[in-house]
């Protein structure tokens, strides 16, 4: 199973990213779980200094911006294959 974490508080970009991530997971139909991390100490621990951050299977794939659906699809695909 793929673990996807969206890092960020309730800010607009973070909600947007969560929404896009859930959409990608739903359309790809993969076994994945989307989780929201809001605790800033945890976020800092992962080395992310600007939200929203996206973590797939414990690897930070993007931070400080909203990646496009295609990008997320690509990351999830490669995580699914490995």
């Amino acid at each position, binding site marked *: 199973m793929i673990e996807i974490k969206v890092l960020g508080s309730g800010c*607009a970009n973070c909600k947007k990213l969560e929404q896009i991530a859930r959409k990608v997971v739903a359309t790809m139909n993969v076994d994945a779980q989307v989780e929201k991390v809001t605790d800033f100490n945890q976020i800092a621990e992962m080395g992310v200094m600007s939200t929203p951050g996206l973590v797939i299977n414990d690897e930070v794939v993007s931070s400080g911006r909203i990646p496009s659906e295609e990008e997320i699809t690509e990351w999830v695909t490669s995580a699914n294959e490995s």
Partner: protein
Amino acid sequence: MSNIISTITELLSSGFGNLAAYLAAHVLLCLLPAFYIAGAMTALIPKEIVTRYLGRNTPKFISYPAAAAAGFLLAVCSCTVIPLFAGIHKKGAGLGPAITFLFVAPAVNILALTYTGTVIGLDLALARLILSIAFGIGVGIIMALIFSKEDAEHDKKTDAMFKGQARMRPAAIGFLLLLVALLIVGTFQIAPLKQVYLQFDLPIQGADRLQEFLYALVPFDASRGEEGVTVQGAVLIAMLGLIGLASWKGLENIHDGFNAWTWIATGLVGLTLIFASLGLSPQAGYVQVLLTGKFFGVLFSTLALVWMLRFKLTQDEIRDFLWETWKFVKQIFPLLIAGVFAVGIIRGLIRPEWVQALAGSNTILGNFIGVVFGVFMYFPTLVEVPIAQMFLDLGMHRGPLLAYLISDPELSLQSILITASIIGKLKAWVYVGWVALFSTLAGLLYGAWVDGTSIWLVAGYLAAFMAFLFVIFALIEGKKKTASRAG
């Protein structure tokens, strides 16, 4: 009964009047470009440009100014402030620079500065900028000294996250500079921009009658610093509404791709800016059009921006830029409108004598009252500015006004709680105490300058105060070291 109704009607019309005057007069040429600059700063400046100076091994004399610069350049949005603060504190330069960043960020963001400059005055905006940076570094150093022991113990792991080496593309820098140029020609009241270079008459009937109708509809009292709504202002308010509508359709779902509305919204903004920079005066039977330096400045910078947007920026940059801008507008603008409306109503209820008695002169008490008001009242971003203007009109001295303007965005219950969750309750409340002290002091110093004290004397006071603090802390540090050696 009829008395109460007439009072309520009067208050409501005062609220609407204030709102209409604000939208027509202040918003366009300063706030629209400022929102775009804020969006461009968030989307186009990679944070590594500054954060690489915030690592653990950077010398203090670089990391503190870098933290202040980060506050100005990167922290337009709370999305960046809190995570960056947590990051600097836990993994990077430590508590001191993190506090400097936290102090500077809300006080000097580009939107607040521009707005303060246009509504209240450039001197106050500059005082807000300079004193916030000076005191931000001061508070950071003090906090680092008070808590030096705990600070040494924090996370000793790698500072790899501060090693990034991103650069800004020249096109992105150019775009940002053009936006700043647009803001400057749009808001600065200097002679070459006010000079009329061309004028002509348009045969439009009835504009003068519409003008009289608008003045009657939105009554205003020029002696109290109020402004009425002009015909041009009314057209601009309508255009703002259209922009809002087009943006909702074109920018809300920009992550699904651009659509026609995206370009309509962007084009409308350009047209609105150019129209706002025209000088129009309605006369009987015709409208006189004045083309000033401001008009040509706005026209050329808008055209240059459109050209860059079309040919120089990448798709991703444009999308991020438009999205961030729209996000700020959506987040801040509705609250600002509600706030301005409320200020218009409240202004009718507060008696000038109260304000004058409490903070009419530059005293320690007056400044402290400004700070206390700022801490306990929480206003959304930018709303503190119309509130400050209301106090100014009601007779508040500019010193206490600055004290209020620095402490209000700095401290609110919400931000104190978030800060406490990252650095702990004790540190957070010590920080609050220092911010209150420094805001009071900032007001006093600026107030002294307004009252005629020479700028060098004010700078001297500032330097003497800082030196005094450092001597005290150096003494405490020395004692601690002797004690630990003895024990």
